[in-house]
């Protein structure tokens, strides 16, 4: 595909990007910081979809369920076991990863629509399971509290900036890890698997194991983003992970370009920006209640279709194609 960036160069790039974010975080207000945290969280969730669908060729419609697993694991670690939030986020990724490993063992046997159906059923059934166990807090859910920012950051270090730091840092580290993973042997075998499973198997790749691996890693990434998401809304409950979240994230992944990690920030930005754009549009032109409430959904859907029709391989691909001409 494109030229490979060496891992040292990539690390420098990520550190530089983190530095820019850090400086930017000091310049903007609380609202922007809060929105920025959502962008980082969604970008991470989109990364998990790209890893699974774009690289290993498995279509999952149940990413929100895996996020929910991570969110509950994190919340239980922090709230019930009373451990440090960092351990909570770590557990979010770990538990979701293990869960994904088990699920992946089933998923590896399934192809295309069968896997889509299974994950779809998972996405609607798993959150309702939380109502079964009192420890998960039923409909009200449980709180997810990362606590106040440490006092040494000073008086005017707001809660939102703290959110932003945590989510941006966690996402950066995770995306950096995945980007490195994909540029190793694993990345190549993943691509081989996606492009031609039979040829991949013939050249000695253990297709089943690779699919399970991809599912587990992707679940872990999704779990971490689920943990971050409930940190931002300060509690986890079944209703925090509707099916529409899975679909929106899939949309974000298509907008990003399924075969490329470079644009995940763009996907996250789009998911955060569209409701805002719809709001400002509505406040200018007005309209009925039905119009106001459904406009964001309409815009997301329209964007999805446009993305599929015009840049099926992502905006990055479009730019590259123009360069060639």
């Amino acid at each position: 595909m494109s030229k490979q960036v060496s891992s040292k160069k990539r690390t420098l790039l990520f550190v530089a990007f983190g530095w820019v974010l850090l400086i930017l975080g000091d310049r903007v207000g609380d609202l922007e910081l809060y929105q920025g945290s959502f962008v980082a969280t969604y970008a991470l969730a989109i990364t998990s979809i790209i890893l699974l669908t774009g690289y290993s060729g498995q279509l999952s419609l149940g990413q929100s369920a895996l996020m929910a697993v991570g969110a509950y694991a994190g919340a239980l670690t922090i709230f019930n076991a009373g451990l440090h939030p960092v351990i909570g986020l770590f557990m979010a990724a770990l538990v979701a990863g293990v869960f994904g490993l088990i699920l992946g063992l089933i998923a590896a046997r399934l192809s295309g629509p069968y896997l889509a159906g299974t994950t779809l059923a998972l996405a609607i059934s798993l959150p309702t399971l939380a109502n079964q166990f009192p420890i998960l807090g039923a409909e009200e859910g449980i709180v997810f509290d990362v606590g106040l920012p440490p006092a040494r950051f000073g008086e005017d270090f707001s809660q939102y900036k703290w959110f932003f730091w945590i989510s941006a840092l966690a996402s950066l580290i995770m995306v950096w890890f995945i980007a490195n993973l994909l540029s190793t042997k694993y990345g190549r075998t993943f691509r081989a698997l996606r492009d031609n499973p039979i040829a991949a198997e013939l050249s000695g790749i253990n297709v089943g194991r690779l699919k399970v691996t991809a599912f587990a890693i992707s679940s872990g990434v999704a779990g971490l983003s689920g943990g971050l998401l409930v940190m931002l809304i300060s509690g986890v409950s079944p209703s925090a992970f509707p099916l529409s979240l899975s679909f929106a994230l899939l949309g974000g992944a298509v907008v990003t370009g399924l075969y490329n990690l470079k644009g995940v920030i763009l996907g996250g930005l789009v998911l955060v920006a569209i409701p805002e754009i719809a709001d400002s549009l509505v406040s200018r032109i007005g309209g009925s209640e039905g119009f106001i409430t459904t406009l964001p959904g309409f815009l997301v859907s329209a964007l999805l279709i446009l993305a599929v029709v015009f840049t099926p391989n992502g905006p990055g691909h479009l730019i590259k194609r123009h360069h060639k001409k």
Partner: protein
Amino acid sequence: MTEFITAVLTSLSSGAIYALMALAIVLVWRSTRVINFAQAGQAVLTTYIGYTVIQRTGSYWLALVVAVISGAIIGAVIDRFFMRPIFKRVKSGPIVMIAPVVATLGLLGIIQAIIGFIWGLTNQSIEAPVSTGGYKVMGKVIAFSSYNLLVLVAVAIAMLLLTILFQRTNIGLALRASAYSPEIARLSGIKVDAVRTLGWAIAGASGGLAGMLYIPGYFLYPNAMDLLLVFGFVAAVIGGLESLFGAVAGAMILGFAINFSTTYISQKLFFPTAFIVLVLVLLIKPSGLFAAKKSRGA
């Protein structure tokens, strides 16, 4: 005992509605290799059209006919003017697997938004044409009414018509041939593109019928059919996606499993049962119970 009879009867009537949705999914899958998530939107849109007819004329039966016909038209229009151009554009690369799914998901969102624009988001209701009061069995009122019976009969008639269409007519032969092997069907003079649009139309009609039969027990709002779509899809996958009989069988298995687990174990098992049944079936047969022996090339 009455509990058991109730569970059997409600399983049948909910299974019947899942079956209509599953048929809609399977018909589209057979003709185009697409899981049509927009089906939930198409079905709810036709139900809104039926609702408007009821508002104007007061006749449920007229509304039912209008909904089924408009469902067919909407299905055909979507295939001809939406899916076909997308398939022309997206032809190569791994995106082919994902593009149709994303496109129908996007279409679902657009249809639901348009419904919101036109009819608003408030819950509407459609009055059932016959009594919804439960029958009395051995002196006890059970949760099965004349309306549930009507649903069963209507679905049975629809199945019968579909069977006749598929097994006894030339159109049915063309539909089966195009699903089995589009290239050979084309070589033997079948207009495969027209046939696939027909498949979408029949699927749309089936979805419209499902909506008009399902909504009178619930409320009508833009997302009203989403869950039915999921259950229809799960039923279709259990049945093997290819087979019309499998879709009905899968829907019945799902209907019985859900109603029995919620009656005898816990009300909360409604959704988890669907997942467990699906996983169990797929663990035993990864491509569903009634998958065709030979899949078509590609």
